[in-house]
């Protein structure tokens, strides 16, 4: 599931100037693919402003997301942005992997999340992800846990 959804949605960047920019960049494939509207991007950023950087789910990895308000999510989807240089989220949390999640409703995306959880629960998966530099390699790694 996760690997299928991520197909064509993986991006690599050297660095970004701010965590806001990181979220915007990471969401571009979803905007282009018609999964989300611009408002959803703003909502994700606003979410961090309001509730703190709790979307940093483990050190180094963030899962930007927000509620689907006013149909800002058209179609469930997920994208990945990998940064060469980590970007600092509030409270000094450094992040270099962003799995950006857009969920139509509160249930439809659960297998995506389940796969993501299987991925992250693996030992040294983070080190492995650090080393991979192409979408193909990353999707292969994800398929091993699905």
């Amino acid at each position: 599931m996760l690997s299928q959804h991520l197909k064509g949605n993986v991006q690599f960047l050297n660095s970004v100037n701010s965590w806001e920019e990181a979220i915007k960049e990471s969401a571009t494939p979803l905007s282009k693919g018609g999964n989300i509207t611009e408002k959803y991007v703003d909502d994700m950023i606003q979410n961090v402003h309001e509730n703190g950087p709790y979307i940093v789910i483990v050190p180094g990895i963030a899962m930007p997301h927000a509620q689907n308000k006013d149909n800002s999510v058209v179609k469930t989807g997920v994208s990945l942005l990998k940064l060469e240089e980590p970007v600092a989220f509030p409270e000094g949390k450094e992040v270099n992997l962003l799995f950006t999640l857009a969920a139509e409703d509160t249930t439809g995306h659960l297998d995506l999340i389940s796969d993501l959880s299987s991925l992250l629960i693996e030992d040294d998966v983070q080190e492995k992800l650090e080393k991979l530099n192409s979408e193909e390699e990353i999707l292969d790694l994800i398929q091993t846990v699905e």
Partner: protein
Amino acid sequence: MGSPAKATNESNVVEMNRPTTRARVQAFGGFLTNMVLPNIGAFIAWGLLTALFIPTGWIPNEDLATIVDPAITYLLPLLLAITGGRMVGGQRGAVMGAIGAIGLIVGSDIPMFLGAMVIGPLGGLIIKKFDQAIENKVPAGFEMIVNNFSLGILGFLLMIVSFYFIGPVIESANNFVTSTIEALVATGLLPLLSLINEPAKVLFLNNVIDQGIYYPLGMQAAAETGKSIYFTVASNPGPGLGLLIAFTFFGKKAARRTAPGAMIIHFLGGIHELYFPYVLMKPLTIIGMILGGMTGIAVFSVFDAGLVAGPSPGSIFAYLGLTPKGSFLGIIAGVLASTVVTFIVTSLILKMEKNKDDDDEELTQSVEKSKAMKQQGKQLSNACSENTKKNEDINTVSFACDAGAGSSALGATTFRKKLKKKGIEGLEVKHYRIEDAPDHSDIIVVHKDLKDRAKHAHPNKEVITIENYINDPNLEELLDRLEEQRA
């Protein structure tokens, strides 16, 4: 839900009750800080008021100055007692703490800060123990009346006990301080006075020692020589300044941010009370205060410096205004030297503590071990201060977040996988929007940034906070609890 075996909770409970000494000390330090810090704003408000409006203030105002006394006598100690009571016994604890504190306050004639910091948590503890003892024994329909009258009657007793208890305690403290100071003065080793001065000041005996002992001594000497060192021994604003500078650089979070404001009111306004809470929350820093005070007195003596009258309030401007010709160098040098010494010693103390229990940024893995120790401290502090009841019989764990779709779902899924791995079955683990977490949840798990919201929405639930949705030590601990519960 399966039928959970309840039998072997014991081992779990025992483990919670067996923290190391280190964990205890840390938890206690955190406890003091948490009691004082939320109330610093009130200290600043009072400090501003005092610095401005008392007769020797910047813009004396007789009417407004009438607030000064009641505020420091009643408002500030009550706030501390309420916060302390709430930390131990929730809202009922807060009420009980305040009731106990008013007995102390009226029973003594100095501001009862330390007393309030003892009686507040004690009141909370009393009511908590009482509530535990009668839990499930009150006939339905009588809860309200039992709750109100139990608090009322226990509070009434606590009020009387603290009223009669405190008078003699203060009196003996005064006598002890007075006789010790007289003995020290007789030895001629004036710097030793700081050993008594600094702790006594923080306990709000400053007026007793200044106006009761030093100023009379000073006036005798000044009548003969035109100046006296006794006016300076307890009123030197240098050590307090050094302490607050140290907190500004090396303190933690709120303490660090509020220290600069306190500094202005203390050093320029001469309201020494502003630094007291910082010492009360990190009692070890009194060492820095004592050494700084000693340095000041030593330098004043070497230069044979003194003031012509008692500086009140003890601000740097009052100091310079009361310095006679020929003493400026000595006075300024003494204030500076005491500032520097206190700053250095306090910084070392704060840094030492920081290495031990900083919960801010620990990026390196090398501190893994100290993290584990810190965890113990945290657990203890959570257990004794947050009024969370530790659930013995856990059937439902609810992960919650802002939207109830993303991170909570990730946390719940991961947790279910871990449970499965351990072969623990029969638990309901689901994810929700914080406000929608169901009432039958035994435990609510949220990210630490969302803790306040979760506490607010579910005041009576055990809330576990995490920072890592996959591998959080608090989740591991919960897993262990569940494993033992099911064993």
